[in-house]
C-alpha cells in the first residue's frame, strides 16, 4: 500500500482457538511493577 503501512496485523484474532487462554503467561504485575496493570507488554509463552 502507498499511504498505509501496517505495523501489526490482527494479533487479537488468532485462528487456532486451542492456542489461546492457555494461562502459562506471566500473571499479574508480579515481577516488574507491583502497582499497576499493563498486560499489553507481556509475552505470550507460546511464541
Amino acid at each position: 500500500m502507498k499511504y498505509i503501512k501496517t505495523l501489526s496485523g490482527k494479533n487479537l484474532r488468532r485462528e487456532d482457538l486451542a492456542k489461546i487462554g492457555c494461562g502459562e503467561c506471566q500473571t499479574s504485575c508480579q515481577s516488574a511493577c507491583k502497582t499497576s496493570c499493563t498486560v499489553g507488554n507481556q509475552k505470550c509463552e507460546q511464541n
Partner: protein
Amino acid sequence: MARGQIHKFYLNNKYIVLDVNSGAVHMVDRMVYDVLDHYGDKSLEEIVSIFDGVYDKEALEEAYGEINYLVEEEMLYSPENDLGDLVYNQDNIVKAMCLHVAHDCNLKCAYCFASQGNFKGERTYMSLETGKKALEFLAKNSGNRRNLEVDFFGGEPLMNFQVVKDLVAYGRELDKKYNKNFRFTITTNGVLLDEDKIDFINENMDNVVLSLDGRREVNDRMRKTIRDGGSYDVILPKFKELVEKRGTKDYYIRGTFTNYNTDFSKDIRDFYDQGFKKVSVEPVVTPEEMDYALRSEHLDDVLREYEEFSKEYIKIRKKDKDFLFFHFMIDLNQGPCIVKRSVGCGAGSEYLAVTPEGDLYPCHQFVGEDDFRLGSLDTGIENKDLREVFKKANIYNKEECRSCWARYYCSGGCHANAYYAHKDLTKPYKLGCEMEKKRIECSISILANEDE
C-alpha cells in the same frame, strides 16, 4: 452492523491508527489520518469535496481504496470480539503467589502501602513451615499449568533471607515431584545486600526488582532509613554490584514518582547514566489527601513528561537497544492472547498473596484489609464470593472499559487502584487510565520510529 472502534493519534512525527478489536496497528500519512475523520459518514465524493484544494483527488481516491481494503480484511473498524460468555478460570487454578516473607522493613519510605512493612499489623516473619505450605498449595492448585511464579516480597524479604533460600531449594524439589517450573523473583530495597545474597539472587531468581527512586535527592526525600537519613548512598553501590554480576538475566530497577518529581524522566535518565538498563518508574498509589499524591491537577505535567521522555527514549535506543523502560515496552505481534488481555492480572484467582501467618489475599496491595481476606493455606479459599467478584472484574463487565480504546492493552487496569479510588472493582482509577493511555501511545509511536 455497527462499525468497530479505531483510535488515532499523532506522536513523535508519526500518524498512528489502532484498530481496537483486531489489535491491528497502522502507520498512515496525514491524508489518510484526515480522511478517517469522515470515513463511513461521508461518501468518497463528499470527502473529495471536503479536501478540495488540500489533497489531490486521485490520491484521495487511492487512499480511500486502501482504507476500504483494510476494512474488508477486518483490520480497520473490525467488529467487537465475540468471546461468548467468557468463563474465566473455571477450575480456580492458582499459578502465582506473592510471599510476604517479612512484614517488617529496614527503611521507612513515606509512600509505602505496606505501612513501613507491617501492613498495619504486627511485625512478623514467615516461618519456613508456612512458606513450604504455600509452595505446596501452589503446586497442588495449579492444575496443568507448568510455569508457576513466586515473588518474595515484604516488607523487606532480605530480613528473612534464610527462609527465602530454603524455599528456593524446596521449590526445586517440588519442580520434580509435581513436574512444575517454579520461577522465583524477589523485590528488595537492597539495604541488606551483600556478596552472598547477590550471588544467590543472581543464580536463583528469574527476575529481581530493585527499589530505588532515581536521583539522590528524589530518592532520599521519600526513602528514608530508620534514623531518617537518606538511603541512596547505602543502596546504590549494592545495586550496581548486583547488576554488574547479573549478566543477561532480567532485572528492573524500579522507582516510584510522586507529585514532587513529575519530572521523573530525569530519574529514569539518572538510572541509565548510572548503568542501569532495565528501568521501571511508576506513579505512586496513595489516597489523594497525602501531600505527595498525584491528583488531577498534576495530570497534564505527567502526560507531558511521558511524551517528552518518549522522544529521548527513541534517541537513546538508536544507540543502545538494551535500554528498556517497562511501560514503553510493547510487543504487538507476540503479546498475550485475547483471553489474557480481557481478564487482566489474575489477582484473586490465579494470583494470591500470602501473609507471614499463611492468610490469603487477592494480591499484595489488599493485604491487611480485613474484608479482602480470602482464606488461609490451611483452609483454602473460604470467601468464594469474593473470588468471584475478582474473576468477573474484566473489561466486558466494566462499563467505562467497554468503550475505551485502550482496553486490550491495560486489560481493565489494577484492581487495587480501582478499589482504593472508588471502593468498587468495576470502576477504573481515572488518573491511572489517562497515564496508561499516554504510555500506550508513546510505546506505539516508539515502535513506529524503530520500524524505519
